[in-house]
């Protein structure tokens, strides 16, 4: 018997929500409907009829209220999952009567508002933790080093973390700049 469920492991950073939307739409087109997510890493799908369904993510870390949910429902968007401030919506293309119907933001200004909200509540705390905790801790370990680096597992782990953080910052920073430029047009 063919599988009726699957879990995919995929990493999308806070700057990759547009890629995530495209990927989820592609999955649905292939007959896999997203049920929920654990962290934005584990994606649980169930088998369904292949259909062209648009997925959209909004970011609301302050908690969405029922009026907000009702408004999206009025517009025909199905809300089905939330994950670390991200709210997941979807709507079948067959229920849309214009191209604009597939957007949850109809102007650049509101897209920018969301982007800035992500930057302020996610990127800034990350940057603060990096500069105030990780870097000083790493520098202290570096100062205490004598001889063989690989003999200091803590230092190796910290270095790896610093490296990952830097990669993440460069990736997100570049993406945010590009998105901002796109929305300002």
């Amino acid at each position, binding site marked *: 018997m063919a599988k009726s469920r699957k879990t995919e492991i995929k990493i999308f950073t806070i700057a990759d929500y547009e890629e995530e939307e495209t990927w989820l739409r592609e999955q649905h087109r292939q007959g896999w409907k997203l049920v929920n997510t654990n962290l934005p890493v584990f994606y649980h799908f169930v088998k369904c009829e292949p259909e062209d369904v648009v997925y959209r993510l*909004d970011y609301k870390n302050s908690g969405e209220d*029922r*009026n*907000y*949910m*009702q*408004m*999206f429902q*009025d*517009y025909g*968007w199905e809300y089905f999952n939330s994950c670390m401030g991200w709210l997941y919506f979807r709507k079948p293309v067959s229920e849309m*009567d*214009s191209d*604009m*119907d597939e*957007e*949850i*933001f*109809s*102007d650049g*200004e*509101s897209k920018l*508002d*969301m982007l800035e909200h992500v930057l302020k509540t996610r990127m800034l705390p990350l940057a603060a933790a990096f500069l105030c905790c990780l870097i000083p801790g790493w520098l202290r370990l570096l100062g205490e080093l004598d001889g063989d680096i690989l003999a200091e597992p803590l230092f190796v782990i910290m270095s790896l973390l610093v490296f990952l953080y830097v990669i993440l910052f460069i990736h997100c920073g570049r993406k945010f700049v590009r998105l901002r430029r796109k929305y300002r047009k």
Partner: protein
Amino acid sequence: MEERIRKIYIPMTETGFYILFCLRREQHGYGISRQVKKMTGGEVVISPGTMYGTLSKMEKDGLISFVREEEKRKIYCATDLGRQILDIEIRRIERLYQNTHPDRESISISV
């Protein structure tokens, strides 16, 4: 009127203008969206995220006020400040129109 409010809302975006224009009468977000779609022959579409954000901002800035809730939908209406801004905008747009159509004296706005 505060300078800050003037700076943000004059001139207004098309989305902002239509929302405020519809809120001369009590209405909820999706109702405004349908009305605007009809008025503009589907040319101006206001998506839910944009609608929700704009209504929240306008409420915070005192252009509209929350009237009551009906079946989980917030009903809003323009305040005196909101109407004042709308009037300024309508006059600005009328002037624009008259200057680009010198043969016509005035326009009528219909809903």
